[in-house]
């Protein structure tokens, strides 16, 4: 990875190149939706939101809204020519605008369109609405107690005889844990700009991870076919899953107003409204019972993962499914039963968020591992190792897929050594013996994360590659760029295929007009899918170029090879541009649509069986923390990470994903707390009250290493592995380390059972419990 190889191999695959937009980012010249020059006459829409968690709408008087300065029009459900629904799983449970009742605080009621955003926003608050309140439930416990329905069909995974396993286990334990949700806090909030065209046409510029979904939803609500709708996105200012379905609302309303008024419409909610209205990571209550032996080996697990789904299904089905898919993390269970319960609640509709339920699945799992360790008085790491999946045996998951690429033993072994875990654990224990107020904890936790959409049909992608007659290359694909570096990685693939400098490849905004029927850029799959599709397109063009070269230079096709700096055709060496120019004159098609679908995977949800994942990504982290037992405040002192990204396509980008994912996960599990008041209003609805990590929360020692030896067993592009989501779960070691520090107060005899996020308050309350336990 030295500079030398970058010069000799312009293909640039596996090189640590900077993000394609980096220079534009730092100079403020990277364009986000709100930066695009507005078409003349652009108007601004703003959503009016419910101020009740659950109520019938008795009456809605919009007179004052219409009369407010600058207001041009009001758009309500009555203006919808198609269907008043944007349910992404097509359950028809998610109206664009509420009509007869509201089901959460922050639900859209209507939109105001005005000359300026400020005028629209001011007017949106002037409606006189009478509500008839209905009882509301905002969390899982209340929903369960009230017997609320599930928003979508639950899943059960089962393997082996759980009852028998529990019955014959030497030891058993039971527990319950709350796992908090998480706001995405993409720095760029939701936004859409819709520009009306002739006939039914409308073009939408949206900050979205899923342009094709927006296209579908806009068509659905406008009552027009998808061909009338074009959706464009050059980049997002962060997505993290929060722009997989949650952008639909804004795009649809902008498009609706644009078609109604024949004016371009921009819709951008204020950050507080974005927090109130859009879905978040699901909170869970996990109830578990585990049978295990005296050595800590698990015999059977019975777990129920109940989630706060919110007022509509959205993606709660697949999210809670994925939680169950990760209730094993890296551990083999001889018998297991895991069930999901996605409860209806009067809150925003929870949605995709980096890891998509997987993190919550794992947090639950690591909780019972920890409980076992404390029950046995052992280092939790020993319990972890005792339960790791085997490589040839003990390798069947709760969903009956065989794990064939297990590298967790090596990852953990190497990290244990490089982080000097054993010696540091001794030192931590010694420190705690003498320190009165401050206590330390250390933990090392593994991650095994399944890669592929569990909705098998999403595992497809398209790309469109044009080679222009001057040898420059135009690249489009179905993936979207939200900072994760997808665009540069796919461009690297293309440059590598043609062996041209990266600068020859023009990265273009994603648009439904160039590549149709795309999947969300999600499930960490962006590069695997779109990189392979782009490579397919390149290979088609290359095949034609090879045939042309063979003809023109009178050599065999085998003698034509793409090399750095040009194309070798037997004795002759021509530049890529020369060959392309000649091919153009020779009337060779220099454009191709590429396609890729992930091989082998399948999933039978009803049976709870299949091979839903193409492969697994692995990693491990070791965290050391110090807590203050007087206030519960704490700091993360050191973190060591070893993470498996296969053979990295771009180690700089991948390392960034690992570091960023870890810190984001740490925020989720520590300071990021969502808090609803008694009336059902989310009160942590802005960065003033919702605290994501800052630079001064980064561990002072933060060693992040990619497992350089790893090569994906599967034939992914360049043998790399997906990296977007898995590192988030590395942050679980922070929770476990905090837990150990708390446990030290009672000489590690009692499992602290901290719920997440482990706020200073939860630490202090945990310490208080330990003090009582100690007596």
């Amino acid at each position, binding site marked *: 990875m030295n500079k030398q190889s970058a010069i000799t191999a312009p293909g640039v695959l596996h090189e640590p190149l900077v993000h394609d937009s*980096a220079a534009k980012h730092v100079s403020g010249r990277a364009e986000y939706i709100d930066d695009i020059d507005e078409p003349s006459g652009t108007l601004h829409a703003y959503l009016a939101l419910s101020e009740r968690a659950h109520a019938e709408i008795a009456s809605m008087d919009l007179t004052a809204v219409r009369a407010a300065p600058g207001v041009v029009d009001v758009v309500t459900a009555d203006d919808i020519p198609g269907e008043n629904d944007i349910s992404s799983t097509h359950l028809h449970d998610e109206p664009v605008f509420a009509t007869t009742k509201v089901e959460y605080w922050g639900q859209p009621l209507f939109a105001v369109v005005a000359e300026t955003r400020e005028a629209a926003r001011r007017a949106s608050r002037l409606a006189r609405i009478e509500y008839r309140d209905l009882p509301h439930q905002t969390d899982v416990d209340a929903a369960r107690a009230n017997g609320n329905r599930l928003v979508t069909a639950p899943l059960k995974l089962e393997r082996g005889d759980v009852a028998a396993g529990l019955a014959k286990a030497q030891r058993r334990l039971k527990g319950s844990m709350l796992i908090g949700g998480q706001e995405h806090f993409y720095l760029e909030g939701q936004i859409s700009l819709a520009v009306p065209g002739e006939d039914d046409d409308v073009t939408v510029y949206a900050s979205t991870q899923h342009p094709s979904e927006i296209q579908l939803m806009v068509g659905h609500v406008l009552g027009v076919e998808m061909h009338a709708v074009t959706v464009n996105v050059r980049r997002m200012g962060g997505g993290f899953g929060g722009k997989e379905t949650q952008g639909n609302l804004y795009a649809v309303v902008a498009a609706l107003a644009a078609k109604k008024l024949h004016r371009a419409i921009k819709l951008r909610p204020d950050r507080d409204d974005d927090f109130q209205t859009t879905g978040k990571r699901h909170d869970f209550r996990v109830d578990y019972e585990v049978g295990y032996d005296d050595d800590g080996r698990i015999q059977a697990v019975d777990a129920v993962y109940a989630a706060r789904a919110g007022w509509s299904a959205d993606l709660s089905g697949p999210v809670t499914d994925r939680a169950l898919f990760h209730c094993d993390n890296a551990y083999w269970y001889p018998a297991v039963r895991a069930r999901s319960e996605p409860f209806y609640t009067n809150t925003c509709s929870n949605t995709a968020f980096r890891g998509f339920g997987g993190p919550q699945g794992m947090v639950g799992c690591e909780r019972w591992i920890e409980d076992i360790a404390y029950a046995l008085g052992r280092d939790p790491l020993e319990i972890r190792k005792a339960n790791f999946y085997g490589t040839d045996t003990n390798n069947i998951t709760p969903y009956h897929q065989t794990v064939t690429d297990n590298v967790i033993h090596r990852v953990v072994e190497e990290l244990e050594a490089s982080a000097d875990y054993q010696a540091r654990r001794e030192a931590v224990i010694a420190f705690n013996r003498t320190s009165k107020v401050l206590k330390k904890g250390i933990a090392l936790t593994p991650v095994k994360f399944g890669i592929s959409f569990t909705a098998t049909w999403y595992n497809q992608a398209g790309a469109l590659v044009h080679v222009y007659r001057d040898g420059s290359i135009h690249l489009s694909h179905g993936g979207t760029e939200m900072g994760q570096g997808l665009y540069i990685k796919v461009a690297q693939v293309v440059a590598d295929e043609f062996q041209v400098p990266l600068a020859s490849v023009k990265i273009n905004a994603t648009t439904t007009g160039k590549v149709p029927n795309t999947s969300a850029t999600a499930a960490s799959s962006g590069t695997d899918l779109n990189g392979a599709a782009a490579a397919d397109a390149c290979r088609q063009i290359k095949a034609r170029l090879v045939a042309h070269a063979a003809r023109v230079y009178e050599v065999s096709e085998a003698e034509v090879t793409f090399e750095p700096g040009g194309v070798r055709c037997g004795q002759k060496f021509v530049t890529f541009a020369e060959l392309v120019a000649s091919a153009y004159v020779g009337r060779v098609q220099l454009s191709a649509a590429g396609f890729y679908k992930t091989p082998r995977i399948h999933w039978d949800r009803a049976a709870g069986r299949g091979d839903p994942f193409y492969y697994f990504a692995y990693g491990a982290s070791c965290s050391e923390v110090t807590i203050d037992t007087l*206030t519960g405040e704490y700091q993360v002192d050191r973190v060591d990470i070893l993470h498996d990204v296969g053979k990295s396509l771009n180690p700089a980008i991948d390392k*960034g994903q690992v570091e960023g994912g870890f810190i984001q996960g740490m925020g989720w599990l520590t300071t990021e707390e969502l808090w609803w008041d008694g009336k059902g209003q989310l009160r942590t609805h802005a*960065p*003033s009250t919702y605290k994501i990590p800052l630079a001064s929360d980064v561990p002072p020692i933060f060693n992040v290493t990619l497992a350089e030896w790893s090569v994906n067993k599967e034939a992914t592009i360049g043998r790399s592995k997906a990296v977007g989501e898995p590192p988030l779960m590395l942050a679980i070691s922070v929770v476990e380390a905090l837990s150990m520090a708390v446990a030290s107060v009672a000489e590690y005899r009692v499992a602290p059972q901290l719920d997440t996020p482990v706020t200073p308050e939860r630490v*202090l309350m945990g310490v208080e419990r330990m003090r009582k336990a100690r007596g």
Partner: protein
Amino acid sequence: MTEVRGQLRFILNDRDVVLDNLPATRTLLDFLRLDRRMTGSKEGCAEGDCGACTVLVGRLKRGQLVYETVNACICFVGSLDATHVVTVEHLSAANGPLHPVQQAMVDHHGSQCGFCTPGIVMSLYGMWMQNADPSVNDIEVALQGNLCRCTGYAPIIKAGKSISAYGTVVADPLIVERQSIKARLQALKDGKRVELGEDKDRVIVPASSDDLAEVYAANPTGTLVAGATDVGLWVTKFMRDIGPMIFIGDIADLHGIGEVDGALRIGAAVTYSDAEAAITSRYPQLATFWSRIGGQQVRNAGTIGANIANGSPIGDTPPPLIVLGASITLRKGDVRREVKLEDFFIAYGKQDRQPGEFVEAVTIPPLGEGEQFACYKITKRRDEDISSVCGAFRVKVEAGAVADVCIAFGGMAATPKRAKTVEAALLGKPWTAATVEAALSAYAEDYQPITDMRASAEYRMVSAQNLLRRFLLETTGEGERLVREVA
């Protein structure tokens, strides 16, 4: 009578801006993005918490031209007379080389989605101009007001450390042009009162504190604006009108920091940043605390005077200032009066301040012989967070017994409030664990804290009690505190 000018004038990057009317509520960020179509600065929150909108504002302060980072989203254009506003667009030309800060960020992979990046670049730039060889801690402080959701900051910190490898501060355009900019700003600062607009769009920038006294007495319903770190949010979050807006942040004779009869006297328009050296040199116990008020951008704008005047129960400066025995000078027209700070807070939302009366200065006496003092801030996140509980303690121990004690808390009641029952339980008793343990039950007499999104009532109570335990430990030599140790 003070002369009046009907124009607001400032320099934006390399251009002169002259405005003869503007909505009082116009923020700098909207001015840049909407009026000027300069879209480099981003809006991430519109409440001063994310830093995506960070710009530099250069002002003449005590004869110097000082550039400081500011959140453009809650900075009113009406506060910019005679300033030099520098945005990210000023750092490099479209096809020119990147600025050292920018190149360092690129080379260290400091951006992913890039949305926070312009703000981060500006924060690093502001830091680097004053400190070309920053420590990790310096960088963390500079970035306290900048959120990045993508990178996890590690590459940004590395970039911050390496800026000087890409260029020198002396060659930086803002340094090279400093004298000429200073001269231009001095010319703009013509000693006149600025007055624009009518009614709710009226903006007044008084020329002096006497002028302010006159203006405010004549317009007692006007909104005083100092750093706008509170008022900005009234506009961006609650869409309140604030006209006539009276901007006091640039009034030179409210910028005083000096000693009067041994006490520290701080003018009402002194920002946290400006006061830092004077405060922390006299009260080193406040050093960490001070750097945990807001983030850097908020400290560059927010004032102590307004932190008191706003009467918030969770403002950070009242507890320590009450415990130090501070008083404030209130002025209306030509009438001045001194009020003990602890008497200023009457009830939630109610202070001892008359219409047309403003805070002119805060006076803080020194610690007496043998007095021990500490102040603790408890938050969910270490930096840039509002206190769940803020506790300040002062004790004087003579012959092993408590000769004098003063304790005040924020976050525990509807106002910043003294713990008089707890104090009584300590006074005259031996300064020991037994005394402290016995006094803890008195907390329930003084405080009935609430549960809200920051903390539960129970946590507030337990941690507030524990702070007394901590204070005892620290004053008796057994203190252990979390210390963030970075390079």
